[in-house]
């Protein structure tokens, strides 16, 4: 019969089809709104333009920057990977809040973790749309290619994306729990981690007690690792391993928090906008 779904497929514990359906939903939004695509690329491009000029200036006034060509542009681009990774995750969730569509999704066979998988994929797509043009702009304008970092770049990229997903999961859970009043977190929360991540300076510059906090962040290992590649030409595998371990711990904890909050939302009637 046309239309009636396969019962076994609908009851399957994980369905790539349902994840694909959600990704398609977000692709439809992007496809139907060119300002949204422009917005994705706008800030990374502006970051590169700004840090490109700062780098040019400092190259003649700072031996540190002069020794590591592109260290600031590379840092700006990688920071944007982290920021876009988190934002891309949270914004896709906000789309459902803005359109009051959450209840429709969760009376369907869509599982919360399939929803999270779709948000993760969309975060990846949105980040690539935002950061790749900026990386090419850096080559064109400043002759600096972040791709010269080689294979470590792939590791840095995914380690930062994973951290972005962990932060995105927590923010998304908070928005689900406290409603659109918590929307601002999606835009600003990650910046609290910027000073601690050693994006543009070594972690050693921080006070001792802050360094302890800093080394609990995967991003600190990534940016130190990036500088090791640029200044010394060495790949700090120990940094990568620690960042990966921390990412796994944070994603597991954030995922558990998201699922707990989903349960709370079902108990309090938050998915349908009724109740408390």
């Amino acid at each position, binding site marked *: *019969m*046309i*239309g*009636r*779904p*396969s*019962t076994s*497929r*609908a*009851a399957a*514990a994980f*369905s790539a*089809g*349902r994840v*694909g*359906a*959600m990704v*398609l*939903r977000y692709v*439809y*939004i992007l496809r*139907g*709104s060119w300002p949204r695509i422009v917005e994705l690329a706008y800030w990374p491009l502006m970051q590169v333009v700004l840090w490109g000029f700062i780098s040019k200036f400092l190259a003649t006034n700072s031996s540190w920057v002069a020794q590591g060509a592109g260290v600031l542009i590379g840092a700006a681009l990688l920071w944007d990977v982290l920021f876009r990774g988190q934002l891309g995750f949270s914004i896709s969730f906000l*789309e459902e809040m803005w*359109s*009051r*569509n*959450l*209840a*429709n*999704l*969760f*009376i*369907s*066979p*869509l*599982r919360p973790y399939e929803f999270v998988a779709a948000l993760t994929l969309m975060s990846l797509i949105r980040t690539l749309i935002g950061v790749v043009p900026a990386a090419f702009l850096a080559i064109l304008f400043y002759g600096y290619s972040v791709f010269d970092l080689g294979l470590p770049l792939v590791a840095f990229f995914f380690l930062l994306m994973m951290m972005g997903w962990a932060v995105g999961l927590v923010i998304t859970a908070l928005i689900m729990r406290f409603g659109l009043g918590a929307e601002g977190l999606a835009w600003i929360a990650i910046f609290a981690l910027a000073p601690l991540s050693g994006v543009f300076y070594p972690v050693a510059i921080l006070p001792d007690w802050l360094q302890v906090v800093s080394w609990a962040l995967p991003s600190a290992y990534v940016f130190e690792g990036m500088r090791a590649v640029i200044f010394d030409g060495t790949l700090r595998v120990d940094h990568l391993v620690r960042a990966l371990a921390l990412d796994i711990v944070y994603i597991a904890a954030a995922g558990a928090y998201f699922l707990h909050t989903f*349960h709370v939302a*079902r*108990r*309090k*009637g938050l*998915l*349908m*906008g*009724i*109740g*408390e």
Partner: protein
Amino acid sequence: MDDHPEGEDPAPTPAPAPAPAITVHDLTKSFGATKSFGAVKAVDGISFTIARGETAALLGANGAGKTTTIAMLVGLLIADGGTITVLGEDMARHRYRVLGRINLSSPYIDLPRRLTVEENLAVFARLYGVENISRRIEELAEELELGPLLRRPSGTLSSGQRSRMALAKALINRPEVLFLDEPTASLDPDTADRIRTYLAAYRARENATIFMASHNMAEVERMCTTVMIMKAGRIERSGTPRQLIAQTGCSNLEEVFLDIVRGRAAQ
């Protein structure tokens, strides 16, 4: 030993009767207990059974607990107490066995306004694992007169058109149990009448169960075989529309409703 003489077919074992579409027992839900205020009982120990193929209505004044009840029936809201069984499955433990076989349309939820009608239906068809998606969308577009609207962004539709789109979404998976919250609230009388006729035909064709909350008494009287009237979280009266009218001595369901919510109905 064979119980049946050779050459004779054994008498066919009667198929077990299918489980009721919905069984609710002693369902309770409270909201908002704080230090200053006690909890508000939104649903207070209701029980009922709806057979397959029935059209049932939950009536009640605003805040009576209708939407809360529907939210619990579809698994969006966790009950404080009691049990819900839909299509034979316990919703507290096995709701994912059922969610692909039911659906809901409610004015309290919306579909993404930036997506076209067709895109919205396509996304939900995939979520429900519908086969031959484009044929199903065409079919619904024809039945609900959505054809000229398919390529329009949902946000540009009138409220009546949006109601029809929401209904199309609720029917995309040919649900065995269809939950409707105010299904014809924003429709003009002509369209509302067509939708009622369509829903009755759908129920008959698919042997589907329809469970609705409505404030339109004429609609309920026309469509429903079972009516439950809620007040302050409890079911005050239930029965067929005729039974309720006869029990209360009223001339129509609207009078029955008013008598009950205003506390005038004889117990």
